[in-house]
């Protein structure tokens, strides 16, 4: 997207087992769990790649 006002931010996955899925990304891709939260009554985990230039995940409405 050439418009500099836009930057790709996140992928949103609906999971039957969020914790297991998050652990999968950690184990397979070396990702990190940046936040383990609950939103709207459901677990919500932020998994991040380890690129240094990625900003910290901010809160998102999802």
């Amino acid at each position: 997207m050439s418009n500099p006002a836009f930057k790709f931010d996140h992928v949103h996955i609906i999971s039957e087992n969020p914790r297991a899925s998050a652990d999968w990304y950690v184990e397979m891709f070396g990702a990190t769990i940046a936040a383990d939260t609950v939103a709207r009554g459901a677990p919500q985990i932020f998994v991040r790649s380890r690129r240094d230039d990625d900003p910290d995940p901010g809160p998102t409405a999802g």
Partner: protein
Amino acid sequence: MTILIRGRRLGEAPVPARPIRPYADFSSHNAWGTDHFGFLYQGNLKTFCAELRVKGVTFPVELKKGVNGSLLCYVAAPDGVSIELMQRWLGSPGPGRAARSLPFRQISSNSSTSSRPSPRGSTPEHFPPHSSAVCSNRDGHGEVGTLARLGACRAVIDGSRDFAGPATRPDTFDFPRRAAKYRIATAYSAIASVFPAPRDVVTIMSLPPRSPTSRSLTPAGRGELRFGAGGLGECVSTLHQFDAHAVGHRDVA
């Protein structure tokens, strides 16, 4: 990049994702909307995939070469998610620049080699599209073509042929080792001067693997040479971490 993974919220009744399935020359979940997401892997994707496989990961699309020469595969992630992994070309300074800058006369861009017939049935059309420099001469195209089919090569140094030294018999590999060492070292320096970015270099040579002479071919501080079983009865060495940058190495066995 952030991957937000969350559970089912009140009122939702998610349906399972459709399985990914192959089509003519691609794969998809055959559903509207987001199909998959992709990661660019900056390393040896083949090795990484082997590690994933050991951990039990399955690949709905096995590692293969994409239309632009990049390697790609699809990983089955939890929740029916498909992840594409790619190993992309490392950029190109352009064949014209390479051809002008490399200081030995046999260096040629893809286009300039296209008129040569291949002695082993492989044609220059097999060169990967981003191959920016092919150091070869005489009947070296068969080997170059073979390597190109095995994977993308930013540069190929054919040390088994005479670059600029005395003529050697093209059907044998009994060239003077000293000359070979000079040629390959010169080629490394030339490529390093042309390509400031990390790159893959595949070296074809006929020196015995693990010989002292072979080990000495690695320029100091420039990386590491490893030897594998090459095709065509030759030793094929693959340069790792050329010029102190991490680059994907190529398995040519």
